[in-house]
Every structure is written in structure tokens, then in C-alpha cells.
């Protein structure tokens, strides 16, 4: 075994199976983890969504290993967040429990979809062999990143025009959330901790399943969907949303890690490197974010997502 396969045995194996050659240098991954952590800490939203596609684009780590390892390291990040923010939050266990039921179905569905694509092989288009896994993942990541990038750009632009100090970022449009909030499909449940008199159980399960699918299939923490969904769609107070999001994260990421482990998709060394460097970078990002409050800076995140989309497409078409 070469140096790379000794350090990253699972990633090397799956790369070999999929006919690609991985090239992650330890130094490169340390810098990468630090930067991704810094972006997440600084912009506070969606940074983790960049990890898996960039691991594949920059280091050729197969998508199944990138997603599995990213999920596993996020479990560590969630543990860290629980310990750091436990005093600032309150958990609605009833809401969290119902949501978790939807999340687990979503996670399992996402992981199975990934497995299906992992084994789907390749097809030839214009004389070029293209794998189903990289093709679908590139399309999904590109669409999602474009969507988030456009929303963040618009939010930041509006914040600059209105002279707001900080731009709040939410992937939800008010009209859409209002429609979801008023679904009266039974069974309706009451959530006393969140102060909600009646909400359709299907809305809660739907939010859980959507975030679960993102966790299992894309390795995204799902917080960029779950937090705004808890606040705007379900109507939780901020303090309950933070606590319930953390509670959900731990269990959904734990389940995602477990099911990815059974399929051999987690490279522990990659996990250790990303978790350690990402957490340190995150802390520095958070401290910088407290000092740089110009909403124009938020537009940088939009440009980062657009750059990643271009990188993904270029890699798929030319490499």
C-alpha cells in the first residue's frame, strides 16, 4: 500500500473500485479543514455543505466516503455545540421526538440512494466515461449551492440597502412558510414547550424527512434547513429552536454515522483531520464574525458557493 492508502485506507479502496485516483495530502487536508471550519464559523450557515463536494473536487475522495466521513465528523461538531450552547437553549422533546422519526426515515432513504448510485457504475457520453454517482451528486450539489448562494446574495444586498447591521439568512420565502404553517391535515398536535397550539404532524415529519435526506445523501448537517424551518415553518421561539436543532443533529448524525459505517463509507483518519482542524477554524471564524458585521461581507459566501459550483461542473466535464 502507498502512503495515501495507508493513511486513508477506506477512501483509497473506494477510489480504486470506482476507477479514480485519490490525492489527499495530509497538509492539504489540514488547510482545507481549517478553511471550511472558518467559513462555517464566519458565515454561520451552509458552510458544511461545501465539505463533501470540495473533498471530491479537490482531493478526488469518492463521494460515498466524503459524505460518510463528513457526517461522522459532524457528530463531533454537534457534541461540541451541545457542550458550548447547552445553557443558551431549551429542548422541545415532543417536537424533537416526532421530527426524529421523520429524520431517521429521511437519513436511511438518503444513504440507500447513495448506495444505489455507488453501485450504478458508469455510462459513456460523447466518448467520455461518466459515473452515475459523480454526475448525480454534481447536479444535486450544484443546484442546492446555487439556490443558497442566490438567497444569501439577495439577503445581503437587501441588508446593505436597508442599512441593517447583520443580514439574517433564511432559505425560506415568507409566502412559502405561511402556506406550510397553515396546513390543517390531521392529526394535529400541540407543542406546549414551543407555545404552539396546533400544528399538523405531517409538517413536522416532512421537515424531519427533508433534513434527514440531506444528512444521509449529501452529508449536510441539515441545520441550514432545520433552523429556519423550526423558526419560520413550525414557529418555535429561538431558544427552543437552538436546543431542538442540537438534539436532532446529535441523533440524526449518529444514525447517519451508524448506517454509513455498516456500508464501509467512513474513513476515520479523514474524520479526525477534518474534525480537529474544522473546529479550530470554526472558532476563529466565529470570533471574526463578531468583529466584522458589515452585511456586504455576507456576499462573499454567495461568491464562494458560485465558485464551488463552477469547480464541480468543470471537474465533471473536463476530468
Amino acid at each position: 500500500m502507498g502512503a495515501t492508502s495507508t493513511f486513508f485506507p477506506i477512501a483509497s479502496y473506494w477510489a480504486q473500485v470506482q476507477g479514480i485516483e485519490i490525492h489527499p495530502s495530509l497538509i492539504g487536508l489540514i488547510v482545507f479543514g481549517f478553511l471550511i471550519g472558518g467559513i462555517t464559523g464566519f458565515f454561520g450557515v451552509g458552510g458544511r455543505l461545501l465539505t463533501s463536494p470540495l473533498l471530491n473536487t479537490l482531493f478526488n475522495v469518492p463521494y460515498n466516503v466524503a459524505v460518510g466521513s463528513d457526517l461522522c465528523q459532524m457528530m463531533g461538531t454537534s457534541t461540541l455545540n451541545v457542550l458550548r450552547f447547552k445553557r443558551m437553549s431549551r429542548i422541545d422533546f415532543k417536537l424533537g421526538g416526532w421530527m426524529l422519526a421523520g429524520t431517521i426515515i429521511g437519513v436511511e432513504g438518503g444513504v440507500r440512494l447513495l448506495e444505489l448510485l455507488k453501485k450504478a457504475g458508469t455510462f459513456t457520453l460523447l466518448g467520455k466515461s461518466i459515473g452515475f454517482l459523480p454526475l448525480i451528486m454534481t447536479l444535486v450539489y450544484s443546484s442546492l449551492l446555487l439556490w443558497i448562494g442566490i438567497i444569501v446574495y439577495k439577503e445581503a444586498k437587501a441588508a446593505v440597502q436597508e442599512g441593517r447591521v447583520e443580514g439574517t439568512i433564511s432559505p425560506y420565502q415568507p409566502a412559502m412558510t405561511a402556506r406550510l404553517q397553515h396546513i390543517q391535515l390531521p392529526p394535529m398536535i400541540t407543542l406546549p414547550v414551543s407555545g404552539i397550539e396546533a400544528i399538523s404532524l405531517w409538517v413536522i415529519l416532512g421537515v424531519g424527512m427533508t433534513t434527514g435526506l440531506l444528512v444521509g445523501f449529501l452529508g449536510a448537517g441539515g441545520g441550514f434547513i432545520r433552523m429556519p424551518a423550526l423558526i419560520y415553518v413550525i414557529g418555535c421561539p429561538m431558544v427552543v429552536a437552538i436546543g431542538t436543532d442540537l438534539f436532532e443533529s446529535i441523533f440524526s448524525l449518529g444514525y447517519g454515522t451508524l448506517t454509513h459505517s455498516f456500508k464501509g463509507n467512513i474513513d476515520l483518519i479523514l474524520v479526525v483531520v477534518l474534525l480537529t482542524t474544522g473546529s479550530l477554524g470554526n472558532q476563529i471564524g466565529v470570533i471574526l464574525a463578531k468583529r466584522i458585521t458589515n452585511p456586504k461581507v455576507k456576499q462573499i459566501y454567495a461568491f464562494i458557493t458560485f465558485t464551488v459550483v463552477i469547480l464541480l461542473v468543470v471537474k465533471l466535464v473536463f476530468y
Partner: protein
Amino acid sequence: MGVMEYVIKTAVDAAPQHPGFQAQPLYILLNLVLPIILGIALAWITKLIEKALNRLLGEKR
């Protein structure tokens, strides 16, 4: 370095190239436990970093 070698060896044990591959219990356990342990340690380390940086740059908010 001993711990690192042990972790690498465990990951190799779980490498799915072996015929009839089944994820090893230790590999699964490590995947679940290691991030949590690291997360606990990092929570403490990042708190120290935060304190040090805040002292260095001046408290904000």
C-alpha cells in the same frame, strides 16, 4: 504514534476489499465514539482559544 497506528489498523480491518466484508464491530464503535470524545475535548480547547483570542483582541458582545 501508537494510537494513530492502532486507528489506521482498525480502519484497514474494516476495508471492504476483504471477501464477504462485514463492518467490524470495533470499526463501527470507533466511528461512533471517536467523534464524540474528540468533540468533548475540542469543546474545552475551543473555549480556551476563545478566551485567549478575546483577551488578545478585546471582548466584543
